[in-house]
């Protein structure tokens, strides 16, 4: 049994990015579900989204790789182009960038919504607002 745990731990430590993702994701989920304060809920959901972005950007990591711009190799006499193996895959980064934009837009809309609720009911607590509506 303990051997299995050791193997699982070893596997997990080989991929620290996955561990970080899971921890952040669960933290975000916990904050989002347990708080009745709307701003705290938003913080939770922001954390949740960021954890997914972290996962997305870390799967594109490659050690000692170059930026994905065609670079000429000057070491040889003829200017050959560095083979694609030396480049980082740019797609995860592009996706992350797009997802960040989406996240920012969501945050903007949600903060505007919370501001509108606060102006109307002068409270940020969801339960309190619901009581005031009754």
């Amino acid at each position, binding site marked *: 049994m303990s051997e299995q745990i050791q193997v699982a731990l070893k596997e997990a430590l080989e991929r620290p990015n996955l561990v970080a993702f899971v921890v952040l994701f669960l933290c975000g989920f916990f904050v*989002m579900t347990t708080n009745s304060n*709307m701003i705290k*809920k938003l913080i939770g*959901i922001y954390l*949740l*989204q960021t954890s*997914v972005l972290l*996962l*997305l950007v870390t*799967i594109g990591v490659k050690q000692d790789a170059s930026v994905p711009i065609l670079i000429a190799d000057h070491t040889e006499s003829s200017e050959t182009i560095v083979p694609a193996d030396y480049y980082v895959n740019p*797609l*995860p980064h592009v*996706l992350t960038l*797009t*997802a960040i934009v*989406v996240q920012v*837009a*969501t945050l903007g*809309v*949600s903060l505007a*919504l*919370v501001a*509108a*609720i606060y102006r*109307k009911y002068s409270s940020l607590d*969801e339960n309190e*607002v*619901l009581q005031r*509506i009754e």
Partner: protein
Amino acid sequence: MRDHLPVILFLLPFATAICLPMVGLKAHRWCRPLALVSLLVMFGLAIVNLLLVREHGEQSYGLAGWLPGSDPTLGIEWVNDHLASAMLVAISFLASLCLLYSGSLTPTIGKHRVVPYYTLILLLISALTGIVFAGDIFNVFVFLEVAALSAYALVALAGGRALIAAFRYLILGTLGSTFYLLGVVFFYATTGTLNMAEMYQQFIASPELLHSRAIVGGMTFLFLGLGIKMALFPLHAWLPGAYTRAPDAISPLLAGLMTKVALYGCVRILFWGLAAGKLLEPVPALTLLGGLGMLAALAGSLLALAQQELKRMFAYGGISHIGLILIGVSQTNQTAFAGSMFYLMNDAIMQAGLFFIAGAAILHHGVRTVTDLPRLRQSPWLVAAFIALALSMIGIPPTGGFFGKWHIILGALEAENYLAITAIVVSTLLTMAYFQRLFLRIFGHSEVVPDSAEGSLALPVKLAVGLTAMLVVVLGLCSGPLIGFFRLTASAAGL
């Protein structure tokens, strides 16, 4: 021109949405005609697109000239096939109808909100167009978010209690799209592509890939996210509140389109991405979705029976219909697939029609709950349309609802899935029960004195209500060729 039709269909509402705030700055009464014209032109183009696709077959469009087909696929692919073009006709038709209808209801929204109102509707429509066309799973995510953000803001436009409903919708919707994105990450990490067609090829070449832990996990998150978006039964919590509290002119649009398009995205990924029509490996996912569909069909109509508020009741009815469509999709045979796609179109129209009636009933007769219903007697127009739509909701012959359900049941018989048939029949009986409750209130004896209505129905309202009611009957009468058309989409899905 023909080659660029998909992107024109998307850009038309999008460009108008960008222009509207500028126009609205000087003269906000120009907003409505402009938006309406843009959507009507879009409807015309969507019909042209449907005819062209029928004639020339499926078209694959590479955005900005980055044509797909290169290996590996560079650029963004849009798929313009039978299912997408039919869906687009439904979207643009309902959107123009909603805009027509909302004209007499805009005073309730307030003058300073007119510009954002029309801008957001157009943004929503262009995002839905994007989801329908998208050929890769990341684009579906982006457009889902754009559609959802417009929807949150549109729900919140009503102010007051709608703000809370919109906030809940936002929290759950964002959670859903985050789950979806997580699924996309898993799929990308495993297959190295986002393009559905390429994914399809990989899964066909090595079906055992579908058993890998990453793909199974990715599927779970993907469908969990889409399940929240389409308000699949245990994940439906945001829907009744949002649809009930949204402005009366907005609920038909959201009820008719939002959940249906999410369901369309789910079908698209299942059959065009995961090859559910060809391989046996995705079957567990389909079985699970079908099981949840049965649960949704039963629970949705049961909860509808318990509601007092009209709009809330119709919202739960919509939840049960999402379940019905999923049952049809999960049978993996042509008949059920064609039936459920036909039912999807029908349901979009029925839901929009019911919310049209609910909105008009609130505005003209002050009918919000079941007890107020006798006041509706003053308006034979509304009651007649309501009867037609109710017949279709229950599924009684000359209406489209019947033929959709009928083919789903035939498909389930073909698949020998008797549990699904039982679920459909029981859900139909429950639907009948809650509509009977409504009609008993309308026609039965009551103490509620019908007071005078606030003005007669405006022509656009009459038109919107009458057209939807007529259309469910017309769809039923033309069900033969339409089912034949959707059978084509089923064979395109590999069934």
